[in-house]
């Protein structure tokens, strides 16, 4: 450090002034003091150049450039520097040289310094511009590479995707499609690229398809998903699951539409086929039960004023054809019938279905089915008239039809079909080859019968059956000789039901065997009670009915023997009643059990004699000891005077019976006159309301007592 007023001190003062002037316009991160330290060597070079003889301009240029290197890049820094040099350089650094000469030299230094500064700033600016441009390029390269990689990956996805992808502009012009999409449309990508999305209409387009499209291209919707059909160039139909998304640019403006489509044509066909198979009969191609129920349900759910008509057809004697000609012939017959039925129901709202086997249905719907269903049934009957030719045979086809017609909204499909089924059976039991109209009462009866049939087994378990007894009276002395056991069913809902209501059902289901055994046991036990109480009134006999089914049951003899032994009742106290019709044409096998019972002493009565084909000659070989004349004979004697021919017939039968050693019982005696008449004709025993209606066992006791005291 020199003296403050020495040359070094003056140089430093110059540097301080200079740094103070320039510092505010620099961008340096140095403090002013540090900055001043940077300027000091520059000030020294200027000071020396001011006093030197040669190369002064070069030095000044170098100082100007150094100023740029010290980040004095604002031209204001140069202005302030020059001002500072102009004012202070000669003053602080000129020493005692000639002032005018020094000022001229200072001027030249300033010119050179300005030139050096400008040159350096220009170079620095260019270098920095170059470097930032290079950096931008490099960065672009990096990004472009990343984009390229990403694009390549995208392209691989685009091309390799199994789903069809296409990109279109907002006017619908297709810009790009991938291979999968081209293949869906049958090949040629070029054909697709020149197309417009809006040309791709199809008659099966759902109404919202094009509304959604418009919303999307207007930018009101980001995406939509629809099932859509397209025509391929060859005219075939392509079905797709289509998802369309809106692509926006960086500012969020709609730019493109991206469509992703999945080919569902085959899946759809498969679904249609599966649906068809699930709803159609494989043999005839007619709609099956499933589809029919759907349609029927729809018809029954129809609006007010809508009606339905249903024809339920069952072929008569189809089983015979199947059994005799084989299933193949039977199937061909069904196919032919199906074709003919199909031709009968061609109007809108009409359909024919096969429910299974030889059962078909025809349905008609609309407001006017009351008339139409009759015509439909008539058409079906007509269609069956012409014989069907199979394997060179002419087969006559007949059918029975149950017709149900009614308003929609009242009954369910199951109920309607049941009614049709019942009615069809009514047509069948009326001889077939006809159609019958459903009738609520007939339905109700059938329905009750069905209900009773299913309730029978539990009724026996629950003890809902009971027995009433109708006295058998000796016509000679009017004494009670026994009683016929008549089974009753105390039904929880229907009350007391007579045997005519349920015995045929029990016969049909086989329940008659346990039920018959129960009746037999119960009656025989009752017979023993009577015997114990009324030993004085002579042997009381119990008559029990045997159904044809029981008759052929192998356990009949054994059951009967066991019951008699268990109760200790003598066989001759029991009379089994068998209907004449059950024994018509009976062979020895069937008669054997009856013979054995008869041999044991059990009486066998031939019930309802005279109603069937009364084979008098046959009577001899039957193990029968009693004839029960049918009530039709006694009915004719209710008139007065009785028809003499009827009287003769009865007299003849009685004579014949007696000659065969058979006793004769008459049923349905309602008046004293009848009773007297029958006594005169030689009948032995009688039963009927004239004596007593069937009643509880105690009533019989009373009758017997009355009789005994009479």
């Amino acid at each position, binding site marked *: 450090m020199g003296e403050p007023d020495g040359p070094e001190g003056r140089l430093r003062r110059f540097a301080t002034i200079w740094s103070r002037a320039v510092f505010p316009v*620099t961008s340096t991160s140095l403090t002013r003091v540090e900055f001043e330290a940077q300027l000091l060597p520059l000030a020294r070079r200027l000071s020396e150049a001011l006093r030197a003889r040669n190369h002064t301009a070069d030095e000044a240029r170098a100082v100007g450039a150094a100023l740029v290197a010290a980040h004095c*890049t*604002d031209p204001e820094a140069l202005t302030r520097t020059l001002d500072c040099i102009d004012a202070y350089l000669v003053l602080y650094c000129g020493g005692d040289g000639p002032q005018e000469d020094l000022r001229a030299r200072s001027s030249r230094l300033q010119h050179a310094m300005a030139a050096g500064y400008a040159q350096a700033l220009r170079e620095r600016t260019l270098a920095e*511009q170059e*470097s930032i441009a290079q*950096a931008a390029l490099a960065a672009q390269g990096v*990004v472009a590479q990343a984009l390229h990689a990403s694009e390549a990956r995208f392209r691989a996805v685009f091309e390799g995707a199994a789903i069809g992808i296409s990109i279109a502009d907002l006017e619908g012009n297709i810009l790009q499609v991938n291979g999968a999409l081209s293949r869906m449309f049958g090949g040629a990508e070029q054909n697709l690229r020149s197309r417009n999305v809006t040309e791709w209409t199809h008659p099966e387009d759902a109404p919202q398809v094009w509304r959604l499209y418009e919303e999307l291209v207007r930018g009101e919707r980001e995406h939509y998903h629809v099932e859509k059909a397209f025509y391929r160039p060859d005219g075939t139909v392509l079905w797709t699951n289509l998802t369309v998304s809106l692509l926006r640019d960086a500012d969020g403006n709609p730019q493109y539409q991206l469509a992703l489509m999945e080919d569902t044509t085959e899946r759809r066909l498969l679904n249609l086929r599966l649906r068809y198979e699930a709803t159609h009969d494989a043999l005839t191609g007619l709609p099956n039960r499933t589809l029919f129920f759907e349609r029927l349900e729809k018809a029954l759910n129809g609006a007010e004023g809508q009606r339905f008509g249903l024809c339920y057809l069952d072929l008569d004697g189809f089983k015979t054809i199947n059994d005799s000609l084989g299933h193949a012939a039977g199937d061909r017959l069904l196919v032919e019938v199906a074709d003919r039925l199909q031709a009968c129901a061609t109007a809108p709202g009409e359909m024919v279905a096969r429910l299974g086997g030889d059962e078909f249905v025809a349905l008609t719907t609309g407001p006017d089915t009351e008339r139409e269903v009759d015509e439909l049934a008539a058409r079906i009957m007509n269609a069956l008239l012409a014989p069907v030719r199979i394997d060179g045979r002419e087969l006559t086809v007949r059918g029975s039809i149950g017709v149900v017609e009614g308003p929609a909204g009242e009954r369910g499909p199951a109920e309607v079909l049941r009614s049709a089924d019942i009615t069809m059976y009514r047509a069948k039991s009326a001889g077939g080859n006809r159609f019958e109209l459903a009738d609520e009462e007939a339905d109700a009866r059938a329905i009750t019968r069905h209900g009773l049939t299913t309730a029978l087994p539990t009724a026996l378990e629950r003890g809902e059956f009971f027995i009433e007894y109708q006295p058998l009276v000796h016509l000679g002395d009017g004494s009670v000789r026994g009683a016929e056991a008549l089974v009753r069913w105390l039904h929880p809902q229907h009350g007391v039901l007579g045997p005519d209501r349920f015995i045929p059902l029990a016969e049909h289901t086989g329940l008659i065997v346990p039920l018959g055994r129960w009746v037999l046991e119960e009656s025989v036990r009752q017979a023993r009670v009577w015997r114990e109480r009324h030993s004085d009134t002579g042997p009381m006999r119990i008559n029990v009915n045997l159904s044809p089914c029981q008759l052929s049951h192998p356990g009949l003899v054994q059951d009967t023997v066991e019951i008699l032994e268990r109760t200790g009742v003598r066989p001759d106290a029991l009379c089994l009643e068998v209907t004449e019709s059950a024994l018509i044409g009976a062979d020895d096998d069937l008669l054997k059990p009856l013979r054995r019972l008869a041999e044991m002493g059990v009486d066998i009565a031939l019930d309802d004699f005279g109603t069937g084909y009364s084979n008098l000659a046959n009577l001899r070989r039957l193990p029968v000891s009693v004839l029960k004349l049918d009530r039709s004979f006694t009915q004719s004697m209710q008139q007065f005077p009785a028809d003499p021919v009827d009287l003769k017939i009865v007299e003849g039968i009685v004579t014949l019976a007696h000659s065969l050693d058979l006793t004769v019982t008459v049923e349905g005696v309602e008046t004293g006159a009848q009773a007297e008449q029958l006594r005169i004709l030689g009948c032995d025993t009688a039963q009927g309301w004239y004596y007593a209606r069937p009643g509880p066992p105690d009533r019989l006791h009373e009758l017997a007592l009355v009789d005994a005291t009479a």
Partner: protein
Amino acid sequence: MERPAWAPRSIDISVPSVSRIYDFYLGGSHNFEVDREAARKVMEFLPGLPKTMQANRAFMRRAVRYAAAEGITQFLDIGSGIPTFGNVHEVAQSASPGARVVYVDHDPVAVAHSEAVLGGNSDAAVVAADLRKPEEILASPQVLDLIDLNRPVALLLVAILHFVEDADDPYRAVAELREALAPGSMLILTHASYEGLPLPSERAGGAVDVYQDIRNPLIMRSRDEIARFFEGYDMVEPGLVPMPLWRPESSPEDEDPYAFSGFAGVGRTA
């Protein structure tokens, strides 16, 4: 494929960049006309802004020297921008030869430029990453290569947090970085604020609008909000202060009034 956070859709030099604008404020020519145009617009509202930037650079220089003096040899500068002069690696490596510096920026041009500048400096590197995804920064090969996370690091968040909106949760990012760094690490931070500006905030708001327009929102935060970034750090004296007042090496009277806008501070974890 998800686009990395840093990778722009494309390099568009017709869009102003905050790092090139910053360079312009500092008298550099690493910028394009769009950048200068935006910078001039800002300066219509804040004419002394370059002085704020200069003070920012001066603070960073003092803080780096302080950290080096405190024995820190690893520096992580996130939001480094375009290194015009007096960069962290220059300051740090002159104060502590062999110091390791990793720069991070999400501007690909700034990254490319830094790569060019750092070519041949084996102790410094640049990572293209975003402050909003600290895990990507910490897992980058450059950080793994140069920084030993078991030793203290000086984390520089200089003039960057005011470009991260609250929606991107800058506090979470700062906390994640703090947790990843070894005890004894430092946070060197500056942040723009309406507080300390030598003009009404309504007028300064015009500058904020310009940044909004170039889709680089400038978030002015209060001193309290800025102090919250130091959660988990012990403040180094004199705490969170205007930049010229942080450990000044020359008389603050020399400073331009604009240098006093915003706040600077250094914190250290125990």
